[in-house]
């Protein structure tokens, strides 16, 4: 499907940038005329992905997070990338309630939330190199 618009943003893995990142993606997504519910879903998924980069990818050290968003006629594609420690076992990481940081009271529900709020989630990761989470959501055309 034809790409209508795209953007890429790089920002620091600071916790105050989680809210910033989700506003950026929501403002961009608004070009597809989503409902408020669709917009809230996208924001929640982006928050979870960005939080993972900060807490797991960089373990609260400073690094760069990149978000790429692509708009097609009735779909948004969002990539959230870090160059942090990577994920050893992606399948295990995606399981509900599984967390590598129970000591931090993590819920282990981040990937489950992304999967439920978006239509499709793909995870690519290399230990020591970093992680990309690609998320897709159909925005039904209301007009």
């Amino acid at each position, binding site marked *: 499907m034809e790409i209508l618009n795209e953007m890429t943003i790089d920002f620091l893995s600071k916790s105050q940038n989680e809210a910033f990142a989700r506003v950026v993606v*929501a403002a961009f997504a608004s070009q597809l005329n989503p409902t408020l519910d669709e917009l809230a879903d996208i924001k929640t998924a982006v928050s979870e992905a960005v939080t993972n980069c900060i807490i797991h990818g960089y373990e609260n050290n400073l690094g760069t997070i990149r978000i790429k968003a692509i708009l097609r006629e009735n779909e948004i594609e969002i990539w959230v990338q870090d160059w942090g420690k990577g994920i050893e076992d992606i399948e295990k990481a995606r399981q509900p309630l599984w967390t590598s940081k129970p000591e931090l009271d993590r*819920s282990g529900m981040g990937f489950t939330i992304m999967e439920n709020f978006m239509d499709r989630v793909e995870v690519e990761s290399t230990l020591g190199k970093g992680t990309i989470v690609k998320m897709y959501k159909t925005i039904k055309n209301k007009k």
Partner: protein
Amino acid sequence: IGEIKRFIRDNSPVKMARSLRDLTIKIQSAKEKLLYELNREPTIIELSEEIGVPPEEIVMGLEAIQPIVSLNDVAYQ
């Protein structure tokens, strides 16, 4: 200098909502009105047209109304 600023503000096609608070109140009442009229959830552009503020600004207003609470945030409390 101040003249230029005033000129631009006064002629701005989209008068900036006086504050984010005003905007959030407008969004909430427009949302309820459209929900009733359309019998479904309004889209961001429908809200934008109702209020006369660009969709991107509505997004900022929404962020102020309803900060997304992630399960993780809840877990922290």
